[in-house]
């Protein structure tokens, strides 16, 4: 390993620690996206027309973090104390800053960015970095990638600036200052040198200290003796500078794509119209489906949340019979559900969160024993369950039990396992209709329908069973004919001698 003889920007001092040789490494090209208005755009009501600011408490005093166009035209700028802002604009809309909301926007954008490159990182609280060198060939250059980015960010209504550079930090700093790209490592010192210290995102007191020393740009910083600088601002900051220049490798932990999808869409105005809500949900589904496709995943549950302005949001959960990844199926079910929801108030935003991603199953589990069932059959099942409730849609199966009321079951149609081929099918003829509960023949309904006397045709068939659980029965079954010709399945209970109707021969 040879000590690196780089164009030393730090005069004099030989560095105490030997530097490793920089192996010829494939060049990276990082595209950083900075969202200057993120605090405002991440919040509902942030894009309102009235002068609006986002404020947060800084050391006990509320200060403006971001202001919208109207507010800025009135002279309100970031870092202004809130009281001053109120002096400048009487009817000021103040929103407390929400770091989680901002993070959510960045995460959602990062998920989308996976369609461009597998190396994506959330770099600061308002910027994202994509490593695009390996994607240039696929997309045909940097400009098409920037165009895709512009389109997506426009759709999400976020203002942004994107810059490219060979290192991550350089790209982020350039983007923060709305500078054009610096495409080669050689241009980095000059380009970064021209940036003010504020571009680095270092804390304000550090910036103040450097300004007091007469250091205004990054270039000034780089001209200072390195060890002295390290003593003043810390070795960490010096390393940051070196990493930005590409002199030190930047170690980053690879961001893992999330196992869930969560996103929200804000509506232009409060509404309770289901077609508008369905439209918003469709936008979210259109964002979800490519993520699923890219991840080769499917989801089994989905939760929809409709946010209201002055009350808690309404949420509803959809469970799928079979895990789903198709757009049409998702849209159908979400539409059905939204149309059936009663909203306590108009909604201002729609949020969607999925359950955990599951790997795409190659072979769908068969609901029918053996045959492959079609997506249309599944779709019908889901639509019926949606309308009639899960308990309203059942299958039937035979069970091995002598007691007639237990000789059948209804597995809920959730892809339940088949109870196994029932070999307990009796040889004696059974009625096609069974009453859910045996009806005493003395009861008024039975008397009205099936006037006594009934002519007993066949029987008795004795069924005694169930002593091992609580369903002990001792009955004599007969086939009877009623006055109007109906064929009935009746029994006489041993214990009390009462006659019951249990079935009809349909």
């Amino acid at each position, binding site marked *: 390993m040879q000590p690196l003889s780089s164009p030393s920007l730090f005069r004099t001092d030989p560095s105490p620690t030997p530097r490793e040789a920089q192996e010829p490494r494939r060049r990276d090209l990082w595209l950083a996206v900075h969202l200057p208005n993120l605090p405002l755009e991440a919040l509902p009501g942030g894009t309102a027309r009235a002068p609006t600011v986002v404020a947060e408490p800084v050391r006990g005093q509320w200060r403006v973090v971001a202001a919208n166009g109207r507010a800025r035209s009135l002279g309100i700028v970031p870092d202004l104390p809130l009281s001053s802002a109120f002096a400048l604009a009487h009817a000021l809309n103040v929103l407390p800053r929400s770091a989680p909301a901002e993070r959510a926007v960045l995460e959602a954008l990062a998920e989308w960015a996976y369609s461009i490159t597998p190396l994506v990182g959330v770099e600061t609280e308002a910027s994202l970095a994509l490593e695009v060198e390996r994607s240039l060939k696929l997309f045909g250059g940097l400009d098409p990638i920037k165009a895709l980015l512009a389109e997506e960010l426009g759709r999400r209504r976020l203002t942004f600036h994107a810059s490219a550079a060979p290192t991550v930090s350089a790209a982020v700093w350039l983007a923060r200052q709305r500078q054009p790209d610096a495409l080669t490592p050689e241009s980095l010192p000059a380009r970064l040198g021209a940036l003010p210290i504020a571009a680095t995102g270092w804390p304000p007191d550090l910036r103040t200290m450097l300004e007091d020393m007469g250091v205004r740009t990054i270039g000034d910083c780089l001209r200072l003796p390195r060890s002295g600088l390290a003593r003043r601002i810390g070795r960490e900051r010096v390393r940051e500078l070196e990493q930005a220049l590409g002199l030190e490798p930047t170690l980053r932990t690879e961001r893992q794509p999330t196992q869930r999808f969560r996103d929200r869409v804000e509506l232009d105005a409060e509404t309770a119209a289901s077609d508008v809500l369905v439209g918003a949900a469709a936008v979210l589904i259109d964002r979800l489906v490519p993520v699923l496709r890219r991840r080769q995943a499917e989801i089994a549950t989905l939760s929809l949340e409709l946010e209201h302005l002055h009350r808690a949001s309404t949420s509803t959960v959809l469970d799928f019979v079979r895990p789903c990844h198709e757009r049409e199926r998702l849209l159908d079910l979400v539409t059905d559900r939204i149309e059936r929801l009663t909203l306590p108030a108009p909604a201002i935003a729609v949020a969607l969160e999925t359950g955990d991603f599951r790997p795409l199953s190659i072979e769908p589990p068969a*609901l*029918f*024993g053996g*045959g*492959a*069932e*079609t997506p*249309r*059959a599944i*779709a*019908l*099942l889901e*639509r*019926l369950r949606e*309308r*009639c*409730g899960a308990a*309203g*849609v*059942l*299958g*039937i*199966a*035979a*069970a091995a039990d002598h007691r*007639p009321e237990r*000789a*059948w*079951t*209804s597995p809920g*149609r959730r892809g339940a396992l*088949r109870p196994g081929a*029932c070999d*307990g*099918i*009796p040889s004696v*003829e*059974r*009625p*096609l*209709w*069974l*009453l*859910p509960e045996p009806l005493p023949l003395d009861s008024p309904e039975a008397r009205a*329908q099936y006037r006594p006397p009934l002519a007993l045709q066949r029987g008795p068939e004795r069924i005694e069973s169930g002593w091992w659980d609580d369903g002990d029965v001792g009955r004599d079954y007969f086939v009877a*004919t*009623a006055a*109007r*010709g*109906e*064929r*009935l399945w009746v029994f006489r209970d041993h214990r009390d001698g009462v006659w019951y109707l249990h*079935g*009809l*021969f*349909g």
Partner: protein
Amino acid sequence: MGLEELLRSMRVWRGGSADLVQPAVPSGFAELDRYLPGGGWPRGALIEICLDHYGIGELRLLLAALARLVREAEPKKWIVWVAPPFVPYAPALAQHGIDLDCQLLVHPRSGGRKSALWTIEQAVRSGSCAAVLAWVRSADEVDLRRLQLAAEERGCPIVLFRPVAALASRSPAALRMRLTREAAATRVAIVKCRGRQPTEIGLAGLA
């Protein structure tokens, strides 16, 4: 178009027993099939069976045809039972050779007639059903026409069980019958059917 073809294509109504080509599933009762166009239950039509009492063989009439429809369907299709008055007893169905896996019972929760009719239409239009059996109290002509069209388009028979009083109102159903029981035989009155005269027959051993 030749005369034979014209007659066969059901565009000309001929009184008397015309030999009409209409896809049908044999009911398993030769006596009944003789009087049904196509020799069985029509494959893509709305069938109304009106009855006032249950337990007179109303399901037995259909079972053989249902079993056959399920067997033929590739991939497997459902038989949907919408709001049946009692529980279709699984062992009995199995005794008649019906594939239990393909039966779907639906009980519309609320919404009465509208819900039931919606369910039937959804089932038929999904293309994943071999037949739909429904028990509906009342339905107006508009609803029935929609069901008839849906059944024709998808080739899926809809069997609607209604009270006998419904026969008094008009219906676009392709086949309308009334079932009653007399002595030990079930009387099947074919009140309306395409291309044939109304008749009444008695089937013994049905229930």
